[in-house]
Every structure is written in structure tokens, then in C-alpha cells.
């Protein structure tokens, strides 16, 4: 059993959890993820690691309530336990001294982006942060990002805070030399960022978490086409060259279980279990 030692609501429906998992904390690096189950009948869901505290023996994940399992996780409180927590999975993201690195993230994924930005900052890079959300009220981790970024831009889809959308990035790419872009967020955002950087030839690393079951290379649910080759995001990734990823295929595959996910959510809300 893995205990929730901290739970903090960051904004409505987005919670930060610290799980007691000493051994996992000791091995986790930015870019990696865990798989957890909320109860004995639960599904296995991947969540990107947003931080660790090796001394306390905890790992941090931030979870947006979007479906049955994430909502159920959100209903748990400090002191509660989950039966299964596996990790760290996937390869750590490459951290080196690249020069100027633009770290861009959206929504709930700004939290794991911060874990990467921090590592890149500590490695001596000039870190420019770009963080966004649909609207101002959904922005998370702004203070944390400010701490590890030499400069931070904020963007919202509706323009309620900072820049509206991501088109301002074009000016940024024209203005200054950027050696690497790291994008962590919704697939549409990572796709858009990869398209924006392509004409400038800026190396763009995206963090992909497709549908997964085991998360250790056994099922292939997470297969993604990168540069014409099939890769398993769980073991070959989760970080890939954004200019090589077939995002259309990935988006179609992510929708594969949408009807069932909706059904499961309805049943959960109603407290029913059987069809």
C-alpha cells in the first residue's frame, strides 16, 4: 500500500499528491512516470512524475480530474492509501548543457514540466519557461516555474492572462537563438509547438503518455509512430523528437476508448457497478 502524505488542491479539479514511496523516490528522474491503481478493481493509469523528495521518501504527481479513475483519485485524502504504485518507468529525459532551452507546458502537465525545467536549470542552461492553460483559473505552478526559469511567459487559450494562444512564440524564435525546446502537455499543444519550431530547425523534445496498460513494454497499447518506425512510448520513450512524431495517429489512438470512458464515468457518478 502506498500512502498519500500530502494532498493539495491547486485549482478546481487539479490536485497535487505526494505519495510515500521511498524506493521509487530514490530512483526517479525527470521525464519518467509511474503507473498506479486506485483500488482492486481499478485500471492502471500512467502519471508523469512531477518531483521527488528523496529524504522524505516521497514522489509528487499532479492529476486533473477528467474521468472515472482521476476523479476517484481526487476523492482520496491525506492518510489514504492506494494498492499499487509502480515506477519509475520510461527513460529519464536527456539533461545536458544545451544553452538556451525553452520549456513549454500546458494544463496539468506544467507540474512535470517544472521537474524538467528545474533539472535543466541546475545543469546550467538558460531556461525560458512558457506555461499555459485554457483560462487564468486553470494555471498551476506559476511560482514554482518562476523559481527555475530565467524568464517566464504565461499564455492562456482565452487570453484571460498573459499571451493569448501560442502564436507569440514565432516572434520569440525570430528574436533570439533557442537551442532546444522541451514540450510537455496536451497532444494538440505539443503538435502545435513542434510545427512552430520546425521551420527554425530547433530540436524539439515532446513527452508522450499515450494509453498504457502495463507500462513496461508488454502490451504495445502505447505504440506511436516516430520517424516512420513504431515505438513503445513506455520503454522507448516517453520523450521523442517532436518533428518525427505522427500526432494524428496518436490522437486517434487516444480516443479509442472514449465511449467506454464516458460510460465508466457515468456509472461511477451514479454509484452503479453493473450494466
Amino acid at each position, binding site marked *: 500500500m502506498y500512502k498519500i502524505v500530502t494532498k493539495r488542491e491547486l485549482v478546481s479539479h487539479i490536485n497535487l499528491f505526494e505519495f510515500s514511496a521511498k524506493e521509487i523516490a530514490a530512483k526517479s528522474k525527470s521525464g519518467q512516470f509511474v503507473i498506479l491503481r486506485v483500488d482492486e478493481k481499478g485500471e492502471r493509469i500512467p502519471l508523469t512524475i512531477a518531483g521527488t523528495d528523496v529524504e522524505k521518501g516521497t514522489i509528487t504527481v499532479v492529476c486533473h480530474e477528467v474521468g472515472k479513475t482521476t476523479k476517484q483519485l481526487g476523492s482520496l485524502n491525506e492518510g489514504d492509501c492506494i494498492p499499487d504504485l509502480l*515506477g519509475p518507468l520510461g527513460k529519464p529525459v536527456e539533461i545536458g548543457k544545451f544553452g538556451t532551452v525553452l520549456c513549454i507546458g500546458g494544463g496539468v502537465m506544467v507540474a512535470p514540466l517544472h521537474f524538467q525545467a528545474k533539472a535543466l536549470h541546475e545543469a546550467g542552461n538558460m531556461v525560458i519557461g512558457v506555461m499555459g492553460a485554457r483560462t487564468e483559473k486553470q494555471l498551476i505552478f506559476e511560482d514554482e516555474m518562476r523559481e527555475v526559469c530565467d524568464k517566464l511567459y504565461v499564455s492562456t487559450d482565452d487570453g484571460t492572462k498573459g499571451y493569448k494562444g501560442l502564436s507569440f512564440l514565432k516572434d520569440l524564435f525570430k528574436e533570439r537563438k533557442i537551442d532546444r525546446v522541451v514540450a510537455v502537455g496536451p497532444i494538440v499543444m505539443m503538435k502545435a509547438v513542434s510545427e512552430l519550431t520546425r521551420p527554425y530547425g530547433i530540436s524539439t523534445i515532446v513527452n508522450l503518455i499515450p494509453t498504457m496498460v502495463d507500462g513496461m513494454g*508488454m502490451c*504495445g497499447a502505447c505504440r506511436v509512430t516516430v520517424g516512420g518506425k513504431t515505438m513503445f512510448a513506455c*520503454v522507448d520513450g516517453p520523450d521523442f523528437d517532436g518533428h518525427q512524431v505522427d500526432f494524428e*495517429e496518436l490522437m486517434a*489512438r487516444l480516443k479509442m*476508448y472514449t465511449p*467506454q470512458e464516458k460510460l465508466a464515468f457515468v456509472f461511477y457518478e451514479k454509484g452503479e457497478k453493473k450494466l
Partner: protein
Amino acid sequence: MSKPKPKIRKESVAMPKQDPKERSKNFDEVALGYTEEQVVSEAERCLQCREFPCVKGCPVEVDIPAFVSLIRERKFAEAIRKIKEKNSLPAICGRVCPQEEQCQANCTMGKVGDPVSVGRLERFVADLERERGYELPQKPVSTGKKVAIVGAGPAGLTAAADLAKLGHEAVVFEALHKQGGVLFYGIPEFRLPKKIVEAEAEYVEKLGVTIKTNAMIGKLHTLKELLEQFDAVFVGTGAGLPSFMRIPGENLCGVYSANEFLIRVNLMKAYAFPEYDTPIYVGDEVAVIGGGNVAMDAARCALRLGAKEVKIVYRRSREEMPARAEEKENAEEEGIVFEFLTNPKRFVGNDRGWVKAMECIRMRLGEPDDSGRRRPVPIEGSEFVMDVDTVIVAIGRSPNPIIQQTTEGLEVTKWGTIVVDENGKTSIEGVYAGGDIVTGEATVISAMGAGKKAARAIHEYLMKG
């Protein structure tokens, strides 16, 4: 009046089974098991010959004539005790061992009629004991030695049980959230109920073995780190990496690896969605590619999940199919259709990225290949389109690569299997391996045999030093 001695029957007692029409709609066990009268009657067919060809065919060396003789005397508790001297997972073996290729292959009775149904006898006494409560062997004297076992599949559980019985402390590290490995995630409920896997894994724990789930070696701890805490390590990580055909359209929605399909159904119980959270999609027309036991399992699961038609598409003919005869027969009885000498060339998708058809080509058999089976050769111009909305690719699994990738100095073949000597010893001192990780995809019982052999070698290694 004394009864005349009955003549030995040539035919084995038939296994009672669920009716095919009924069972193709549920996940309950197909084979129902012998009754007491049936089990005794079948045991009476054993000739108690002196050559013991059955024992020679058993990878875990069970004293078959002895336990069969005890069943004849209705000494069921003694019979299971005899089996358990060698085999800690008898209810599993009684169900999934390919007995026809092992203990029953050279049965003397088999020369004049059906061989004695050793597996069914084993299953009966194992089930009886499980229902009545396990009897534990006397606790051995502790040696003070610790062994780490990587993977709680058939090889790992067998090695752990044997080591515990010899007085060593055995700790099993399992990456999934359940013990059993392929027994849990791979073999469907209707062939091997999961409560039996759970019960036999618990029996192994009762022998003194610790099983740690959610512990992926190579990620959470490296093999070298285990060697700092343990006196020896056994690697039984199996063959769990799915093979794909590498043809166009394979990443369309609705195309599964057999592993994914079976993991969802068996490990995650997707057949009980939404009571269990994990979903699965099965359309009306399902094609399963491949001809092994895994293909049969996947096809029969798809049928039970509501498919209207399930086809097994296999590139060779019936004779070359590697699946067990019993499984082929069960699948056919349930209405699975076989498309022999057929191979997919590409998958065709609709505008939403879902598979809607499969372009296939007919094959003919040419000269024998390395495996001794006749090589399938495409017949030019024989392409045709098969409408499908779900495809399950069951063309094999290769060794799990994580340990090999994260362990410096571990000798590995070009196929990714771990190199061992005849006792299961690897290129690293104190590290042993066995099962599919050494042989490539094989049977449950051969993995158990390898676990047993390695446990013996580890014991010798630990006791000499």
C-alpha cells in the same frame, strides 16, 4: 460372489466440459474436472509399468506412478503430498501442461489405447486439497542465505518454492500488481481460473517465500543492487514483448497485440467492465493472426466478449499449427473459423483511424524451413480483402529486455535471451536464469523445470561457499 477383474479400458474417461454453446458466452472454466468415481476409474487404467516413461517426460520429475497408485486406493491426501514433493503448482500444471508431449507421450498404456490422463488426475487431487486447506511440509532449518527471484511467473515461483523448502530465504520481485506472470496475464480465466493462480501463489508464500509486487527490477533496483543484498539471484522474467507484423496500418485503432488483448481481459478483467475499470473493444468481425495457443486464447476471449464472427488467420495449414490439439478442438467447437494458408498484407483504416478491413494473400506450402515445418510461400495475384473491425496479432512474444539492458556483463544472445550453462548459471557469478528468458517463448512446465534445476544449482552454490 467375487467380482471378476475388470478388463482395462482402452479409452480414457472423458473430461466433463461445459457445453460449447453455453461456454462461448461466459468466462467460467470450460473443463469441469473429474468426479471421485471418474478419477479412480481413470487411475485404474495405469498399468504401473516398470519403465516409468511418464516420469522421464516430466520436466519437474513428479513420481507419477506413485501418485496414480495412491489415487487408485483413494488416498487423495497422500497422492497430492507425493506430487508436491516435486511440484508446488499442481492445480495449474494439471490444467495447462501439454501432457500429450510430456508425461503422456510415452505412456505404455498409450501404445494400446489412450494414454492415462495424468494431468486430469493431478488436477483432481490438487483441487481437492485446495478446497480442504493446504497441508504444509515441515519447516526446514534456515540456512541464513538469501536469494532474490526476479519475476513471479512459473519459473520464479518454482525456484522460490524449492529454495524455501531447502531453508533459504526467497524474495520474489514482480513488476505487475499480481503474482503469476503469464499464468495471470496470459492464460484466460476459462482455461485457468485466476483464483487457482492466486491460491497456488499463496501456497508458495506459505512455504516462507516473500512476493513483492509493483517492483520492476532494472528500474526500481538493478540486478547488481540485488546482488549487494542477496547471496544469489534467479532471473525468470519471461517472454512478454509482443511481436508485430510490421505491415502498413498496424497502429490503427482496433488492432491489438495478443498480449494487450489478453492483459486487458485476464489481468485487468475487462470482461467485467464497468465493474472493473479497464475497457476493451471487440467488434463484430474479429481476425486473430497466428496459430499458437495464444491465438486460440485470444480468439476464444473475443468470442466470449460478443464478437459475431472470429477468424483465426494462419499462414500455414492445420498440420503445422503449434497450438495444442485440445485447444484447437475447443476453439472449433465454440465456432471459431480457421482461415489456413492466409497471411495479411496490410490493414485498411476508416477516416477516424479505425481498422475496417485487412488485405490478405493466399499461401501455399514450400520446402521445409529451419523449424522443420514447410515454409509458406505467397501465391501471386491471390490477394483478397477481409472485412474486420478488430484484429489481434498473436504471432509470438520475445524476451523482456529490461534486465539485459540494465545489467552490464550479462551475456545475451542475438535474440535477447540470457545465456546460461546446463545448470542455469549466467555469465555473472551468483546469477542464474531460466524459463522463457533463456529459451524464448515456450511452455509453463518447461519454465518450471528450469526454475527447479536452477534452484538446485543455487542451493549447491550457496552451500559450498
